[in-house]
């Protein structure tokens, strides 16, 4: 009777259920056996997955460019009707999961972003594409010697541009179209391959 009082059934149940839940979460989060591994091991496979994803999202969106990085695939999505770049997506190589790229795509995108969408979003911004390139080049000169900015891609509210060194792309930067703020995409890893789609 005393033992029952010291550790009652309700407490034992809470303890067991809690421990099982935590163990299950750790297993699902970490164990490769729970992942459908290598779902997207090539740009072609990534394109298939993203096309399927976009068909559910909007009929007006298409893949413009896919870049393979060591950490994931980067996908630039364009509006078919306006030919303005709409969103930037990332595709997890191990799970095939597609998600909105964090950073400028979420914070600065005035049409599809998560932080204050405009009622009349526009790709015509106070900071021109040339000025944006200039800002990036100045930042590169100060921080990454020998790096060169490539052609800017215009999104709603910001520009994104590749950066190269000795003719080889190695990364990506975005510039706010209203403030000129520069945001380096530090999360991609090593650049591997790029395919553009007409």
């Amino acid at each position, binding site marked *: 009777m005393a033992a029952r*009082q*010291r*550790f*009652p059934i*309700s*407490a*034992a149940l*809470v*303890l067991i259920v*809690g*421990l099982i*839940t*935590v163990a299950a*979460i*750790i297993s*699902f*989060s*970490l164990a490769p056996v729970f992942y459908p591994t290598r779902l997207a091991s090539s740009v072609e496979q990534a394109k298939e997955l993203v096309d399927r994803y976009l068909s559910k999202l909007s009929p007006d969106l298409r893949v413009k460019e896919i870049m393979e990085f060591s*950490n*994931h695939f980067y996908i630039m999505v364009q509006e078919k009707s306006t030919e303005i770049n709409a969103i930037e997506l*990332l595709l*997890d190589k*191990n*799970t095939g*999961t597609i*998600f909105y790229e*964090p*950073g400028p795509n*979420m*914070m600065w995108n005035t049409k599809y972003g*998560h*932080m204050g969408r405009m009622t009349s979003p526009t790709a015509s911004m106070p900071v021109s594409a040339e000025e944006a390139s200039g*800002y990036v080049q*100045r*930042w590169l000169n*100060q*921080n990454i010697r020998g790096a060169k900015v490539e052609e800017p891609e215009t999104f709603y509210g910001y520009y994104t541009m590749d950066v190269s060194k000795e003719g080889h792309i190695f990364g990506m930067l975005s*510039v*706010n179209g209203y*403030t*000129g*703020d*520069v*945001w*380096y995409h*530090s*999360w*991609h*890893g090593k650049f591997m391959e790029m395919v553009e789609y007409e």
Partner: protein
Amino acid sequence: MSLEERPTTAIVLSLIGGSLMLLSVAMMFTMLMYGWVGFGMMDGFGRMMGGYMGMMGNIGIPFGFMGGLSLIGTVSGILVIIGAVMLSSRPVEHEAWGLIILIFSIISFLGMGGFLIGAILGIIGGAFALSWKPAAKT
């Protein structure tokens, strides 16, 4: 033992600890969803924000793993609060609920641990509950 007699210190510490665990998890979810964390670096023409702490693979931690840690923090926070509430309503079972508070406070370190302070408060609360003795009748 009178009805009013409870391990008050243990209950309060555990409740605060559990609440901090849930709060830290809510913040973690916000960061995961919106990528709000960046390192500000001002220069002549604008702000350079380089990288996410624990976001999307830049330090090799996948999104799913971070989400899992957040869930562990949620489960731990809820169970620590349940333990504190049960400790309050059934102080006679203080050893059982104190153990639960202690175990899940330690586990909560995996999921941010309520900014660490929450987990530490929970551990102290659990230890107090385990060692609590009702005042002897006179």
